[in-house]
């Protein structure tokens, strides 16, 4: 068990215009489950590979426990990694796959067998120990990859999108299993995913990256309730937060012909840069208002999910040049009578509006 610390760590690929990971500062506590999340190309996998020693650290340093491992090869870092495509050795049985690292570490055959069997028991792999990877299902292969990591009892687990090759149902199942396993073993874990649902459900804390830069690192609840900037606000949550940008006017933000109310103090500070303000509100924070009150919208699509219904709407009176991208999503009661093409008026819950400076994209409280 150990803490992990990125200290101004950067990775610049040769001939690249900007760093893949830019001065990353991240402290991961002992036993913590930290998720790195972001869109493709945001540097999350590169960060993980830097921690694994598979990628050089150009500037800054990485510390595991109290040891600076910036220039150490992977085998000296006491880490275990689960790869996206599992990377099981095709010519070895499940048992050999799981025991390979122990064999290299010079651990005796008996001890190896015991530890592999223990791990296999935890992961329900005992009947498959003599099989080769090609004789296993996707889910079983994934568990072997997990087993290969836990059998070593390392200081840190590194997982690079380990669920992305599973089908949707198995993914949800395995998600909870991995989280439970991590709690049980108490091993510090860094987990990379592009799936924000995975990030929110698994992590003690979630670090959101974009273009190699850390945007925010916080608990899932805090990320959801208080996103630090427009990117995090739009990335976390499904369906995404509604974000609209407009001019600051008296009492709120001008959206089309209507005004979204924003508290004066927030509005003043948010509009300080260039007079424009971005406001965000989650689909569940929107209420249907009476005719003529609030934002007039037209319903484009109605999505019935059984437990909820989502209305995908667009501003009814928006001029062509403004806000054509501002499709607003509204969560309503299931089986509501709303139909496609209908005109509605929306209002937002008062405390539920997030305000951002439209220029700096930063949150204003």
């Amino acid at each position, binding site marked *: 068990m150990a803490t992990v610390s990125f200290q101004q760590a950067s990775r610049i690929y040769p001939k690249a215009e900007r760093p893949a990971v830019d001065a990353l500062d991240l402290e991961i506590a002992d036993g913590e489950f930290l998720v790195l999340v972001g869109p493709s190309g945001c540097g999350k996998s590169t960060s993980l590979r830097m921690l*694994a*020693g*598979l990628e050089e650290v150009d500037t800054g340093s990485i510390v595991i426990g109290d040891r600076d491992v910036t220039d150490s*090869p*992977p*085998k000296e870092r006491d*880490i*275990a*990694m689960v*790869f*996206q*495509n*599992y*990377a*099981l*050795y*095709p*010519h070895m049985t499940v048992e050999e796959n799981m025991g*390979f*690292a122990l064999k*290299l*570490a010079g651990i005796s055959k008996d001890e190896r067998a015991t530890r592999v069997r223990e791990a296999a028991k935890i992961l329900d792999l005992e009947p498959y120990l003599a099989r*080769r*990877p*090609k*004789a*296993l299902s*996707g889910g079983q*292969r994934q568990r072997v990859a997990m087993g*290969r990591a836990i059998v070593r009892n390392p200081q840190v687990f590194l997982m690079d999108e380990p669920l992305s*090759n599973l089908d949707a149902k198995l993914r949800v199942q395995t998600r909870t299993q991995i989280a439970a396993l991590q709690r049980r073993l108490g091993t510090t874990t860094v987990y990379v995913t592009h799936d924000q649902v995975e990030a929110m459900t698994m992590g003690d804390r979630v670090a959101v990256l974009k273009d190699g830069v850390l945007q925010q690192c916080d608990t899932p609840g805090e990320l959801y309730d208080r996103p630090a900037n427009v990117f995090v606000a739009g990335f976390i949550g499904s369906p995404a937060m509604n974000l609209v940008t407009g001019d600051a006017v008296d009492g709120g933000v001008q959206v089309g012909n209507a005004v979204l109310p924003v508290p004066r103090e927030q509005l003043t500070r948010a509009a300080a840069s260039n007079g424009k303000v971005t406001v965000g509100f989650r689909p569940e924070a929107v209420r249907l208002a009476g005719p003529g009150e609030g934002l007039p919208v037209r319903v484009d699509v109605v999505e019935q999910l059984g437990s909820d219904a989502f209305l995908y709407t667009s501003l009814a009176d928006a001029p062509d040049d403004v806000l054509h991208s501002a499709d607003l999503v509204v969560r309503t009661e299931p089986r509501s009578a709303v139909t496609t093409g209908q005109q509605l008026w929306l209002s937002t819950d008062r405390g539920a509006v997030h305000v951002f400076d439209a220029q700096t994209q930063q949150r204003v409280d």
Partner: protein
Amino acid sequence: MATLAPPVPDAGRSPSPAAPATRRRHRGGSKAGKPGPVTYTLLTLVALVSIFPLYWTLVAGSHTNAEIAATPPPFLPNASLFDNFQAALEQAPIGKAILNSVLVAGSITVGTVLFCTLAGFAFAKLQFRGKGVLLGLVIGTMMVPTQLAVIPLFMMIAELQWVNQLQAVILPTLVSAFGVFFMRQYLISALPNELLEAGRVDGASTFRIFWSIVVPVARPAMAVLAMLTFLTAWNEFFWPLIALTTANPTVQVALAGLGSGYVPQRSVIMAGTLLGTLPVLIVFTILGKQIVGGIMQGAVKG
């Protein structure tokens, strides 16, 4: 994977048309359906044409010289085979030549497969300075004809006093540019980087990764390269003829001295050729089984 189609030895081809037909059916999916009579006829024809030279060697080697010259020529093997074997063995040290050839071709095969896999792995997966230039140089050597190297090579061999010794034909061919390129191409596509990274995270050194991960993955290509190399080395004539003498020959050098005289004894030459071909046929039968496809299946989700 087109480069990996098992090489077709001109004499060792199985005459059964059923095997390729079945494979084709699997590969082509259900669209093509079952192969029809045309496919079978064509495949049978190709198989017969491929196997005929070997069969003719057997027929000619089992008749006397006069019988082969008759019109029409014989089409079935005869009883004179062992007499002709005897004659061939008396006229040239074929036993010794086969032993020499096994040693020479065997050493060259082991060396080539080992060194080419090592170099191919380095060129395919390791990062080092000057990699592109070095690979270009290696491939460039393929453009230099062997004949050009014969004189300097012979001078070196003479200097080392290796003339008429087997190392003179083994050492110059222990690694081949083609083999390096072939293994590189195979490993680039067949060996996922994650597998090497998994090895590194598991604590393996580069050599350990090579031995425990790369070699098992490369085995099908190594088997193909081994077959090609063995066949080439076994059939090599020009350089062994220069470096060795008929007292210590390889099979091809020995066969060259066979049946010579005022009238070439074709039946004896054919019997000798048959003797010289048998070991190759045996090697191909064994190695053919080693070409196990699908060994990579299941390594990474595909």
